[in-house]
């Protein structure tokens, strides 16, 4: 049963074993595991269910309906860095590119083993979870026939340069390569959680309250005992209230931006640590201009990646963006912009992502919403700068006639490999780059020592039994790879543990 604001006329009360905040990668996985074990589960999701007839109409309706703050959410620091997150049933799994990476061993070591958390997230349990998730979400590498020319060019460039790379594994079924992953896949081929784990949970009796914001976790005798929420309309206007009594626990899975804010609003957890240690994978894109058509809107949205430099904190991947999203990277205005938009079918777009060392923070500014501070360090910007030069070289190797690096102080249009030398001289000031932050981690980090984090190795907030946080906000560090699969795997392991401890 899904209940939304327009179906509710008065305050709602419900009771369950576990109430789960968030229906994305972590929350939906928890609901799927716990309902299978026979628990009564309520899911609370701030966004609406996705109507694919709306998202099929394009970026504008998708972003205004299903992306948090109509895509205006951003980190502020030395520069302004947009952060896109889903705000809908399915969370960011509905609007991401469906990339699924099993946690590489070096990332597992850095993120969990090094912090003494290998017993909290045992590698063998994680592997078992990955295997189940891969089967249930149809995770498979992009097929040749839907690769698209944007990705084909990167594969060819990587092959010529002898760089390790691969077709990207994604959660999809019979993808037709329409290039619309970011539009919540209007053809329903992407296996976002609203296509599988949410319906599976509902079939086993879970209730989903959508368009309902989780306001506050409540406690009784120091133990989490429920959740207060408020139904919201499409403009955030408040409606009736929701009260859920949770007999066994409250599971927070609202993302690395919103889980810490829920704890802050509830005044729970180590106040020095909640919201601290926010990490991300900042990145940018290189645009290449080719004589032959590329049609970046066709084929898998993200089809190929070069992971050759992953241990140097850099990953290159293709991204087929719609012109309204990529157009801001075209360094023109007026008539020149219109001409370059008309040529948009001839551009390739390749992203550079950095496993950044920078840390920021997350908090709340009352009526002004979320406060995210984050500034990539010069060493992080240096990685991105190097990545831009590399992608430029790769693009020229497969016939680009020009590349547009998008760095202030560097020529806007570079027409030869020699011209790329200018990138070496570019400033390391993040304000010179068009950065976007994806893949968010850390602001309720897990720690063995309660002074060093927010959540213990049993996924419960230190000192607050019954309050669990299971999304990427508990990861002590970023991963260096796309995190959806790891988030689901960790949520699976955490939920199985909760079920076992509850005797099922």
């Amino acid at each position, binding site marked *: 049963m899904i209940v939304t604001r327009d179906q509710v006329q008065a305050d709602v009360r419900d009771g369950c074993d576990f109430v789960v905040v968030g229906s994305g990668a972590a929350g939906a996985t928890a609901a799927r595991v716990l309902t299978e074990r026979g628990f009564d589960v309520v899911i609370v999701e701030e966004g609406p269910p996705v109507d694919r007839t709306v998202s099929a109409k394009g970026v504008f*309706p998708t*972003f*205004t309906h299903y992306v948090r703050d109509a895509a205006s959410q951003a980190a502020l620091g030395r520069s302004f860095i947009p952060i896109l997150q889903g705000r809908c049933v399915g969370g960011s799994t509905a609007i991401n590119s469906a990339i699924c990476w099993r946690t590489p061993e070096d990332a597992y070591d850095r993120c969990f083993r090094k912090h003494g958390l290998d017993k909290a997230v045992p590698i063998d349990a994680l592997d078992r979870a990955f295997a189940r998730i891969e089967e249930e979400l149809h995770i498979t590498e992009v097929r040749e026939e839907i690769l698209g020319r944007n990705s084909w060019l990167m594969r060819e460039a990587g092959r010529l340069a002898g760089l390790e790379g691969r077709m990207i594994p994604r959660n999809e079924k019979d993808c037709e390569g329409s290039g619309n992953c970011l539009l919540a896949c209007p053809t329903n081929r992407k296996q976002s959680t609203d296509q599988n784990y949410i319906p599976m949970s509902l079939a086993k009796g879970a209730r989903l309250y959508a368009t309902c914001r989780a306001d506050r976790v409540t406690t009784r005798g120091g133990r989490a005992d429920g959740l207060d929420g408020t139904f919201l309309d499409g403009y955030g206007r408040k409606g009736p209230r929701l009260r859920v009594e949770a007999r066994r626990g409250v599971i927070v899975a609202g993302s690395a931006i919103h889980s810490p804010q829920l704890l802050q609003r509830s005044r729970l957890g180590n106040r020095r640590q909640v919201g601290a240690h926010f990490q991300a994978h900042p990145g940018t894109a290189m645009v290449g201009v080719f004589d032959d058509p590329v*049609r970046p809107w066709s084929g898998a949205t993200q089809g190929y990646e070069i992971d050759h430099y992953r241990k140097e904190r850099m990953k290159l991947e293709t991204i087929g963006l719609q012109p309204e999203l990529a157009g801001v990277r075209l360094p023109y205005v007026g008539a020149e912009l219109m*001409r370059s938009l008309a040529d948009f079918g001839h551009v390739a777009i390749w992203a550079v992502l950095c496993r950044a060392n920078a840390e920021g923070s997350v908090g709340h500014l009352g009526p*002004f919403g979320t406060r995210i501070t984050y500034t990539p360090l010069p060493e992080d910007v240096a990685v991105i700068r190097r990545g831009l030069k590399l992608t430029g070289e790769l693009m020229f190797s497969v016939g680009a006639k020009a590349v547009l690096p998008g760095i202030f102080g560097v020529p806007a249009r570079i027409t030869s490999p020699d011209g790329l030398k200018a990138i070496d001289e570019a400033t390391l000031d993040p304000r010179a780059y068009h950065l976007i932050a994806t893949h968010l981690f850390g602001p309720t980090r897990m720690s063995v020592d309660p002074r060093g984090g927010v959540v213990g190795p049993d996924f419960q907030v230190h000192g607050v039994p019954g309050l669990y946080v299971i999304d990427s906000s508990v990861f002590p560090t970023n991963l260096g790879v796309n995190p959806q699969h790891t988030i689901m795997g960790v949520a699976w392991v955490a939920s199985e543990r909760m079920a076992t401890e509850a005797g099922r």
Partner: protein
Amino acid sequence: MPLPSPAGLKLTAPERRWAQAVFEALLPSGADPRLPIGAREVDMVGRLELLLSASPLHAAWGARMAFVMLQALPPFLMGEMATFRGLTARLREEVLRRCAESPVYILREAMALVKTVALMAYFDDPRTVQALRRSV
């Protein structure tokens, strides 16, 4: 399904005129035969209001300020004692270009914000997407 009428945010009449002038300078009609319509033929301002209505207060006000700021820039960027709307089409485009290439970060960022909003609104019109796809 379009969003219902904006509940909380309506631009004032001068703001609507300012925004329209910026959009028309940024995405002029007839600049390339492959994209036969420009901002003039698309309900850009209506879409801007929808977008701002779906945004949190600080973001909506930030975007409004960007349009106000652009109106006031010509004396500083061009040495012209006029508002943006008071300039010729060629000079309006020049203001936007200087803004996009300015060493002042806040001007570049304001221009990026305006460009993002403009492109989202422009390509929300099905005619523009169809024209783009026909062009290759």
